[in-house]
């Protein structure tokens, strides 16, 4: 069995990649993917911790987190669609009517 510490480490790396990607990429879809990456890191972490503690609730948490992530993707894509409908772009840098 893999040591939960490795899983945690992977989760941390995934999280940082996700966070980094979230502000370094322009494409809204890619940013959404990065956010998913962060949420996946959370899932991994929960799973690893559950293994570490031998506690079943961690697994339950992970399942819930997956559900949350799914809802988020659904809503996100819908919002992006409406953005595309108005701005005809999905580049986050070009959507900056509201500022200051």
């Amino acid at each position, binding site marked *: 069995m893999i040591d939960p510490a490795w899983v*945690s480490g992977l*989760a941390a790396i995934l*999280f940082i990649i*996700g*966070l980094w990607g*979230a502000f370094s990429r322009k494409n*809204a879809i890619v*940013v*959404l993917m990065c*956010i998913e990456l*962060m*949420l996946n*890191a*959370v899932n991994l*972490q*929960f799973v*690893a*911790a*559950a293994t*570490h*503690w031998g*506690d079943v*609730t*961690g697994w339950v*948490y992970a399942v*819930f*987190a997956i559900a*949350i992530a799914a*809802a*988020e993707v659904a*809503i*996100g894509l*819908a*919002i*992006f669609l*409406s*953005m595309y*409908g*108005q*701005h005809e772009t999905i580049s*986050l840098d070009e*959507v*900056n*009517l*509201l*500022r*200051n």
Partner: protein
Amino acid sequence: MLPAACDGPGMNCVEVFSTDFWQAFAPEAILIIGLLLLFIIPNLGNSKFRIPLTKTHVPWFFGGKRVKATGSPALPGMLATATLFTALGMMVIESIDGKMDTTTVVSGGIIIIKMDNFSRFFEILFLAAVLLASMASLDRIPAHTFHGKKSLEEMYDNRRQADFYILMLTTAIGMCIVALAQDLFVLFVGLELASLATYVLVGFHKETKSGAESGVKYFIVGSVASGVGLYGLSLLYLEFGTLQLTEIAANWVDSSILGTIALGLVLVGFGFKVSAAPFHFAAPDAYAGANSPVAGVLATASKAMGMIGLIRVLLIIALPESGAQESAIWLYALGTLSVITMTWGNVAALGSTNPKRMLAYSSVAHAGYMLAALTAVGAWKWGEVEAPSDYAEAIVAAVLFHLFVLVAFKLGAFLVLGLLEMEGGASRLSALSGLARRDPLIGTAMFIFMLALAGVPPLAGFVSKFLVVAGIVSNSVGELWVTTESVSFSDIHWVWWLALAMFINSAISVFYYLRIGVVMFLDVPEEGRRKPLPYGASIRMAIWICLVATVLLGLSGDTLIRMCYRAAESLNLA
């Protein structure tokens, strides 16, 4: 085995879905029922269900040509408002006399939610805010009956009636879960539920550029923040093996560095919700793009939701044990954050010419005030006070009071802007010009809201600011008169300076609040806004409620203050 929290008079523990549970859970249940009804009722129609492989059509009543009575486009709004009103009424009746029983809901030894003064207080706050916003939206997104000419826009509006109120109710339910949650993960689920609904609500104006854009920004930044928060939670779970508030709190003293990191990450997640700098960036954009009642909910209820999270995490979990000598580890972090937040908000609002953005920045500033108050709790071991929880409670009560009265005047201000939006846009200062001349009462109401925001007595905003500062000062002073021969200025804890920063900031803020008043009372109405304001009975009603609350809670806030104290006491900080 039932947790320790179940002992004592007025305390009872129930299993999920037991009879007692439903008794205590009734208001929330009504909300859920209302939500379900909102799904069903507008869609009732004459459609028939064909049993597969047969030609038999069984009446199914769902879809098809809508029944005229239930298919009225005005119905969802009414329904949602009625639901919210009923739930709110039940909660108020239950808790106003202060004799509410505390009900803890457990399942398998895990405390899931708890109905006590604290959670009820916040639920009342959330429901009140959402209720007012719903009421205002009855006129704000006008429902049209299909007589006469039908414009595309009207059709469009009608189709969306149910969507809007479903989202509103979802938000309310999510917030209620946050208020009730005793498990951090449950809290987060509620938070996500509310957040996801608000993302959509912010982007609800998808036929306008700014509506779509604000939705995107609010969604992306919000998702990242909640991702960070969730990661923090997972780290907490890794550290403690549980996300139960009571258990983490009990073990907090022994935590490693991992706990601190997790704390920081969770702070970010909630920091976004309360729009603390530098996590506030999306807020002005979101408020500017969203329609005003929704923005009002964001600025009040959503902020309160974040504040619950902060109170839970900072005050319940991460506070040193009573009797310990050190102050909380987040003292400096939160102190810095609060000063930056309030200053940033106020200074940015100074030059802002968009009233909605201005209100957004003012909301940032208010977040800073409340963070300052929480910071002062972190100093709670200062001066070896006998009962430090009294001091913490004073601050929490002040924060609660502040959050509550914000619903009155900040939401009220947004509703006035909503009224202006009904005749086309409220994103320039000039939209307000001459308001007092066009409609003296609305103009006066707006001015009173502004004065309340600025903290001018005798309005509610003054009392709340007063209480917050009083809390900070009381914590910084502690019980010096007992412990010290003669009190010197250096004996006072540095959080006292937060109070000063807060007052200086609120003095700065007067400038931009007053500017609204000046514009309303002095300037000539701009072109195209010479006619009287649109009537909008329900939104006016909502504004009146806000106005009366602003004045009354300022003149006599004793009942509410007592409620706040009871709520704070039920946190069991000691």
